[in-house]
């Protein structure tokens, strides 16, 4: 489902030096697999997810999703692939504040090949327990409810791969566990692979397949040396 090889990304520092953030030799994820990466702040894990999602272009290397090489595509095609095959759950949820819960989910679908499907959006929101909040705006929801909207939005487009960046970072332990269980459950239902990054041991501990991002990211190893 996901194959990464020799993926590199660096940024210019304020001093004008080029600083390498990501340098991953290989990383792969099978269809439906759920995998967690442990990483502290500044370890480059969000950049890694952004490279996989095609939001950032790598300096070199390749990212292939469902057999399509993302890193070889131009930007509009990357956007298309992202809308078609990826779901992204952010730590800060990144809901559109001016749109209702239902519209947020439908917007997530509208850029994909199947377009916005109101009935499916409703189903997804019902699945995450928000059938009674369809026409509320995000600011009218609790933090936990907002995260559930983000989950519904990420999965509404029937993605092959879900990227979750610290998805419980803004929730308390109880709600964090509930949210994580929901994400994993819904991914399983939709046969979507899940790649989650977090620094929270409680979250990481719930994954059988997990790894330190520092182990696969040679850029961090260089800094450490």
């Amino acid at each position, binding site marked *: 489902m996901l194959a990464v090889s020799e993926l590199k990304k660096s*940024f210019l520092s304020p001093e004008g030096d080029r600083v390498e*953030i990501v340098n991953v030799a290989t990383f792969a994820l099978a269809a439906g697999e759920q995998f967690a990466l442990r*990483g*502290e*702040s*500044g*370890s*480059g*894990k*969000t*950049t890694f997810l*952004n490279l996989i*999602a095609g*939001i*950032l272009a790598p300096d070199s290397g390749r990212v292939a999703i469902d057999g399509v090489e993302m890193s070889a595509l131009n*930007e*509009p095609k990357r*956007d*298309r692939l*992202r*809308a*078609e095959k*990826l779901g*992204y759950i*952010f*730590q*800060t949820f*990144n*809901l*559109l*504040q*001016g*749109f209702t819960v239902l*519209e947020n989910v*439908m*917007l*997530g679908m*509208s*850029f*994909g090949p199947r377009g*916005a499907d109101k009935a499916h959006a409703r189903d997804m929101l019902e699945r995450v327990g928000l059938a009674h909040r369809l026409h509320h705006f995000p600011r009218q929801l609790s933090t936990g409810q907002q995260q559930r909207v983000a989950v519904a*939005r990420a999965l509404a487009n029937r993605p092959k791969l879900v990227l979750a*960046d610290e998805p419980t970072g803004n929730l308390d332990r109880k709600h964090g566990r509930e949210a994580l269980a929901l994400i994993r459950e819904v991914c399983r239902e939709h046969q979507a692979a899940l790649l989650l990054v977090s620094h929270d041991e409680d979250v990481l501990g719930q994954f059988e397949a997990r790894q330190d991002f520092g182990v696969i990211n040679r850029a961090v190893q260089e800094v450490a040396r």
Partner: protein
Amino acid sequence: MTLPLIIYRSLRQHALSTLVTASGIALASGLLMCVWMVKTQAQATFTQTTSGFDAVLGARGSKLQLVLNAIFHLEASPGNVAAADYEMVRKHPLIKTAIPIAVGDNLRGFRLVGTAPELFDVQYAPGKKFTVRAGGRIFAGDAKEAVAGSFAAQRLKLKVGDTFRPFHGLAFDPKAEHADDFVVTGILEPTNTPVDRVVWLPLRGLQTMSGHDPKAATDVSAVLLQLRTPIAGLQMDMMYNKQGNRLTFAYPVGAIVAELFGKISWFDQVLALVAYLVALVAAGSVLASIYNSMSARRRDLAILRALGAKRRTIFGAVLSEAACIGALGAVVGFAVYFVLFIGVANIIRAQTGVVLDVTAFHPVLWISPVAMVALCALGGVVPALKAYRTPVAETLAPAS
């Protein structure tokens, strides 16, 4: 639904600045359409308003003043025409019709004009003749009777059988009342010409009114003329204007009024310039309001991009939003236009009797709204480019 929804929600989120900006556009569009329509209609209507006459003969002076006084019932008379001169022109073989008029009195601000009953036999516009409302009739030439134009009758609340006393002068002065009583014998149907603003009296009735100079009792203020042939106008022009030096022959009436519009063309140019400036400022405010909101919207745009929206979708959304503000302003601009136009048309009607048609069409009625939308879309290009360049990863979260 994506693009319309994004635009709609964005406009709602920034409702106040949307309304303020659209109001500016509406004002500019309404003003522009109004200036244009009043200008073109007024020019067309005034130059076509001849009351059915080809020329006016009056005292030596300005042709324009003569026409404004005799046809539009504005301005003061430049002087009198002696009875002998009137008789001469009336009998001239090149003249088909000669109708004398005498002015100098008013009824509570509305002009009283003395004339011959034959005036009402003339077609005031092609195929249109004066008609008196049911129950009335044209005055007798030798009686103390009056026929009121429709607008004057409405404003003065005159009806058949009413009697009134004229007031001396063109401006109403309650102390300058004449001692003669006139009976209203008829009210004219509306003609949408300056005739509607006049109360008509028999020429003799006005000339011999108490208080008027008996020595001038046979003089007239002007003579309205219909020519037998167009070439007659040139011959009469030669006779009165070039060879003579006592009288003025104003011909053709329409061309003389057109000269007036030529002289005041600077005025509508100034108004149009103001409208253009308002439009420009409004387009600038579209740019400023959307551009200023970009900081607050960067995150939303980045989220949309992260969800798979293409850069050109984001560009199109911002550009369309600007165009929508323009379209909203253009639609409201029609309301502004109608209110302004009706106001101006009422003033023109009250002052001159000339009626402008609010339902008339002119290409400016589509050109102006389309130009406003295009101008606003142009104003949206800069913020749209800013949106287009929004860096998704940086905007959404700091890298970790």
